[in-house]
Structures are given as structure tokens and as C-alpha cells.
């Protein structure tokens, strides 16, 4: 037993360190590129305290790109661990906060908050959380009872909830007849371009404890995969665990949505990729997803700001372009 514990601990450590290196590499890339130029060399010089020729570039690297990279890492960590939780809890490899409409609900809440004129924090964050909880409740109600085990029914409910959310969002946007409409649309498409340290701190205050809770329950998530009956017989209080996990994930997802808009499919791509690499043990998967998801989001954001020749594109476009085909591929595989 003890030997098993040390091996798993060792595994967690090795994989975490490996993923951490990937994350650091992504972060260095993230602060090296941007419309003002720069490049690796400048960043490396700046990291080691050497003076950089252009002082405004140093400002750009540390006060514009750095908070942006940290925010992207937090968002990626929250969304991919959120996806992991949904997949374990609903025992459905295709579950993901965006696909199930949880993100859409959070967006409705956030837009309503913005239109009413609430402050970014706590107003919009709270209205966004309320929106996500309401869609989650709706979703569970539709696919409740025994049918929750059935993949198709849950996914279908999710797609419908998502379609409904999109309709409400479009309604709200069509009602907006002033200049705020541009800001809302850009934000909705997933935007990290204005990240500041204040945003980072707010998000970190929600995401880091959330991740800790998920990691603490990662063993239970393993048991859940064995089936609800088995989990129950092994002493898992299903109801409590489900409520804690769903509440935590919804809180994290709604926090990211209210800060950065809709970034879809992150919770699908990363858990699947990592399950393939490190195996199905959630004790290893959770830290791997947190670090890997962060790295992935940073890279997506880098693509978002370097691909267009003029200006930037929303990061949500990149995550969807990568994620949606993967979703279709997985769906086809799972049907077979």
C-alpha cells in the first residue's frame, strides 16, 4: 500500500514537472511575441536582469504580455480541469462546459450584467455565476435520473441548452443599440488582449482554490469511473461529491467567462490529449490538465495575436477551430 502510494506520488511529480516545463516554455513564447516586436533574445536578457535597449519594450513584456500570459494560463487550467470533472462526473468523454452550454449560460448572465450596468466585479462575475448555475440545473433536469448514463441524451440536451443560450445572447445583442455592442461582441468571442494584473488576481482567487478542491477529490473521480454503485459501495457520498465538484467547476467556468468571454473546447482537447499520454488516473490527470491546459491556452492566445496581419483575432476562434474537429472525431469514434 505504502509502496503503491510512493509510486503514484513519484508519477504525479514526474509528470507535473514535465508539464511545468512545457508551461514555462509556452510562457516564454507568450511574452516573446506581439505586435510591438521583441523576440526570444530580448526576453531572455530581460529575465536575467540585463538591460534591454528599448525600455518601452521591457514595459510591454512585463506589464502587458506577462499578465496576459498568466491570465491565459489560469483560464486554460480552469477550463481543462473543468472539462475533466464533467467527463468523470457525467461519465461521458464528450462532456465539456462549452458544449454543454454552461459557458453559454455564464455568458448570458455576464451580458445581462453588463447591460444592466453592473460593475465588472463583483456585479458581472456574480450574474455570470448565476447564469451558469441556472443552465447547469436546467441541463441536469433535462437529462436527470437514469438517462444521465446515456451519452446521446446528455449531449443532445447540452446542444439544445447551448442553442437556447445562443438565441438569448443574440437577442440581448440585438437589443443593444449603443457603442457597447462592439465591446460585448469582441469579449464574447473570447478575448485576452486587455488582461491586467487586477484581472489576474481576481481570477486566481477563484481558480487556484477550485483546482485544489478538484485535486483533493481526484481519487473519488477515479472511483466514480468504476460506476456509481461501486463508488457508493466504496464509501463515496455521491450527492455531496457531485454537488461540490459541479459547483466548483461552474464557479471556475463562470469566472473565466466573465473575464475573457467564450473559449470553447479547451476542456475537451486537453483532457483527451493527456489521457492518451499519461493514462486515466485522475490523481495524475488533474495536475497534468491544469499545467497542460495553461500551456495550451497560452499558445492559442499567441496564435490569436500573431496570425492576422493587422490587429488581433479573438482567442475563442482559435480554440474552436482546433477543438470542434477533434470533437467530431471523438464523437465518430465513440459511436463506432
Amino acid at each position, binding site marked *: 500500500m505504502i509502496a503503491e502510494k510512493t509510486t503514484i506520488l513519484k508519477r504525479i511529480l514526474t509528470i507535473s514537472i514535465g508539464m511545468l516545463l512545457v508551461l514555462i516554455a509556452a510562457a516564454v513564447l507568450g511574452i516573446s511575441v*506581439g*505586435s*510591438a*516586436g521583441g523576440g526570444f533574445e530580448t526576453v531572455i536578457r530581460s529575465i536575467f536582469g540585463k538591460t534591454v535597449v528599448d525600455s*518601452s*519594450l521591457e*514595459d*510591454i513584456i512585463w*506589464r*502587458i*504580455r506577462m499578465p496576459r500570459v498568466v491570465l491565459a494560463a489560469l483560464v486554460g487550467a480552469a477550463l481543462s480541469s473543468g472539462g475533466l470533472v464533467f467527463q468523470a462526473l457525467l461519465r461521458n468523454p464528450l462532456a465539456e462546459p462549452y458544449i454543454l452550454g454552461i459557458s453559454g449560460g455564464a455568458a448570458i448572465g455576464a451580458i445581462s450584467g453588463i447591460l444592466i450596468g453592473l460593475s465588472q466585479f463583483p456585479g458581472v462575475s456574480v450574474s455570470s455565476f448565476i447564469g451558469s448555475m441556472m443552465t447547469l440545473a436546467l441541463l441536469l433536469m433535462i437529462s436527470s435520473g437514469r438517462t444521465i448514463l446515456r451519452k446521446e441524451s446528455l449531449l443532445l440536451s447540452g446542444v439544445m441548452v447551448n442553442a437556447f443560450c445562443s438565441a438569448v445572447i443574440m437577442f440581448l445583442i440585438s437589443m443593444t*443599440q*449603443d*457603442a457597447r455592442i*462592439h*465591446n460585448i461582441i*469582441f469579449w464574447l468571442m473570447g478575448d485576452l*488582449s*486587455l488582461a*491586467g*494584473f*487586477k484581472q489576474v488576481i481576481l481570477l486566481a482567487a477563484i481558480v487556484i482554490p477550485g483546482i485544489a478542491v478538484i485535486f483533493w477529490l481526484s481519487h473519488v473521480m477515479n472511483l466514480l469511473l468504476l460506476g456509481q454503485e461501486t463508488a457508493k459501495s466504496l464509501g463515496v457520498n455521491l450527492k455531496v461529491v457531485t454537488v461540490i465538484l459541479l459547483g466548483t467547476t461552474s464557479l471556475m467556468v463562470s469566472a473565466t467567462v466573465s473575464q475573457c468571454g467564450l473559449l470553447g473546447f479547451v476542456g475537451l482537447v486537453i483532457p483527451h490529449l493527456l489521457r492518451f499520454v499519461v493514462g486515466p488516473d485522475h490523481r495524475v490527470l488533474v495536475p497534468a490538465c491544469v499545467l497542460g491546459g495553461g500551456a495550451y491556452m497560452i499558445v492559442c492566445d499567441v496564435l490569436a495575436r500573431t496570425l492576422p496581419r*493587422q*490587429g*488581433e483575432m479573438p482567442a475563442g476562434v482559435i480554440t474552436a477551430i482546433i477543438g470542434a474537429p477533434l470533437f467530431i472525431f471523438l464523437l465518430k469514434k465513440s459511436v463506432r
Partner: protein
Amino acid sequence: MQPRKRIFFVCVVLMAISLTALNVADAGIVKDSLGRTVHLPPDPQRIVAFAPSITEIIFALEQQQRLKGVTIYSDYPEAAKSLPRVGSYVRLDLERIVALRPDLCIATKDGNPKALIERLESMDIPVFVTDPRNLESVMQTIGDLGAILHATDRANALVGNMRLRIQQIKSLIAESNDKPRVFFQIGITPIVSVGTDTFIHELIVYAGGINLGEGKASYPRFSREQVLGLKPDVFIISSMARGVAFDKVRKEWYRWPHLPAVRNNRIFLVDSDLFNRPTPRLVDSLETLAKLIHPEIFEEIR
């Protein structure tokens, strides 16, 4: 107006302006349109303008040597096209702005994202926010920027000229009792007009028309049915997509021959840049509009 009366009028106006304009030179700390306190540099040399209109005003003040960055669509005057770009006015590129090392950014409340302005402030870059909502506040903005850029005389001259020309139009229009119903269309699909809280509304009123889009919403949307029900006497279409699009819209309205505007062949296209941008050129727009709405008055003069 008689010449002597006119000179007197201009003098009064100039005095009024020099009293109301910001007294920046000695303070360095001013309140802007968001009610924020802005610490201005005593002599800003590296300005980034966050809207084409602000670029235009700075050029009109002949202070373009201070201008180091502008937005994508800053295309007037010609010389503005060669300045470095920092994104569009609704989607500004934070990195590029900071890379230009501005000592002052000049923003507009309508359009520029507030979050970006806050971000710049957190990096100790002062941002002066303007909010030109009508002709009076456009002139106020010109005066403010004149004071900030040490071009008060030039600003006073510009504003004086604007006031004079506005007054001329107003007194000409006052002769007419006729008030044509004007539908000012700024959007094609959907049909979008202008509400009461816009400078286009004010221009229509000064030019002696009734703005059919008036109301609380700044940019109200209309269905075709609603527009037909309003029975406009004059259509004025200001479209960013000119030419072909305009022909299409005009044809569309010509399908309804009972409309007074169609019957009298009064559907016009105007340059959207002249009507969308709160700049000294708004007076040109006012004159254009007055001639379109009240051609009879201006024909007499000729």
C-alpha cells in the same frame, strides 16, 4: 448680418471661448469627459489619437508634429495616412500604443473601450477622454485640445469660424416655415437611423428639418414598414460602403412611389466621414445638409 455686427459677434464669441477653455498651462491637472482627473504633461510631444476625429482636430490645430500614432481609418488630412497605426478605434492595440511611448493619449468616450483606458492608466500613461456629443461640445473639445497643445489662438479661430457659419445657416433657415421630415439612414441592413443624443440629430435640426429617428436610443433600428409609415420628405443616406450599396438602397426606396421623398426625387447620399466624425468639418456637413433639406433658400441666394 451686417459686416460690423458680424465682427462684433465674432469678438464676443472669441472672448467667451477664451474664458471657457481649459486653463491647462498652469494647472496640469484637469477633469476630462469621464469626470476623471488627468495629469497632463506640460508640453505633450508624443500624442496618440484614438479616433480619426481626434486626429483631424489635431491637424486642424496645426499641432500634427506632436502626433505619433493614429487609428486605422485616420485618413484625413492626407498626411495622417503616413502616421503609425495603433488598431481601430473600437479595437486598439495596447502593445503598439505603449511601444510608441506616448506622453498623452487622447480618447473618445463613445467607442474606445473603457477597459483599455484603465489599462493605460495603470501603466501611468495619461489618457484625456473627450466626449463630443453635439456641435457645442465639439467646439468645447477643440478648445480643450487647443489648450492642452498650446494652440489656443488657433483653436479660438477655428471655433469662431464654426460659430459664425452655424449662425449664418441658422439665420437663413429661420426665414423658412417649412420643416421637411428627414430620415437619416446610417445603416443599410438593418436600417439604422440616429437618435436625439447624436450630433447628426442636431445638424438636422439646425438645417431646418425634423429628424424622424429622434428618441432615446442613440442609433435606433427601423423596419422597412416603420420607415414607410413615417413618410419621410427627404432621405439622407450616409453609408460607409459607398457607390454600389447606395444605388441599391435608393432603388429599394424607389419601389415605394407614394413616399414623398420618392415622389419629389429627394434621396441623397452623403459622405459618412463628414457626418460620423465630430470635427471642425461638421460645419461643412451642416451646410451640405441645409442645402439638401432647404434647396429653395439656397437657390434664391444664388
